[in-house]
């Protein structure tokens, strides 16, 4: 039940930080461009995952409206609480 695979994601992040720390002061490639390129690959494979799953594509219109409202309200209340606390507590 407990998914340990998410812990794996910490490894490349920490590794990158260590490498970045060691490379400090040296000129390295334009990182934001590299990041953008990799994002596009990631988004492509995300779209591919949805597009290649027929069950998923078929179910999208029928549950679409309620799913959209759910996503919107979950985002709305989350943002509301965080922004409210930030303004009140000035953290």
């Amino acid at each position: 039940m407990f998914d340990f695979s998410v812990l794996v994601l910490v490894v490349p992040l920490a590794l990158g930080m260590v490498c970045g720390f060691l490379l400090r002061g040296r000129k390295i490639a334009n990182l934001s461009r590299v990041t953008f390129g990799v994002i596009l690959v990631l988004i492509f494979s995300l779209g591919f995952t949805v597009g290649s799953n027929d069950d998923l594509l078929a179910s999208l219109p029928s549950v679409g409206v309620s799913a959209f409202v759910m996503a919107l309200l979950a985002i709305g209340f989350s943002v509301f609480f965080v922004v409210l606390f930030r303004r009140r507590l000035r953290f």
Partner: protein
Amino acid sequence: MIKYILLVLAIGVGAGYFASNFVVGFPLSWVTYYLFDGSLLVLLFVMGLAFGVDREAVAKLRSTGLRVLIVPFLVALGSILGGLVSGLIFGLDLFGSMAVTAGFGWYTLAGPLLTQVLGSQWGALGFAANFLRELLTIVSVSLMVKVDKYAPVAAGGATTMDTTLPVIVRYCGKDVLIVAFSSGFALSMAAPFVVMAIASLK
């Protein structure tokens, strides 16, 4: 940037549909599994690198402190409340709809988990609602950052540790990286338990 993201997303959906329906024997898992996970790992490495190279990043991080714990708690609260209200709007089972939004945007978890616990109808809803949360977050980061620097982090939920992290960092600044990652991490850890717990009450 969002123009390109939506374009590439549409191309991805089209390519996925084409490959699974018209190309016999196309190894779909190469893209949906290896390319997806591979690019995610590369992305996290590059972002860690950018953070490590930045001399001011650690100083910015030091002023963060409490936010690391408060943000994911508030996001969890807001997400579940969002599920409750949308359940009331559509006349759905309230525990079911709260379990859906308790996926915090992690659709690959919420979809299969809800299918298993509550059936395929809830599973489809869980997948779609959480997928749309991620998509809406990516699309609206540039707008939300004008409301508050942490608003996109709140919107992204569990996805702020991976898929939405680069977009958030790009618009909100590198000092948001740690709050975004740790909030996404805490919510990813909590999501399986919270979804199961709420779904079991139905």
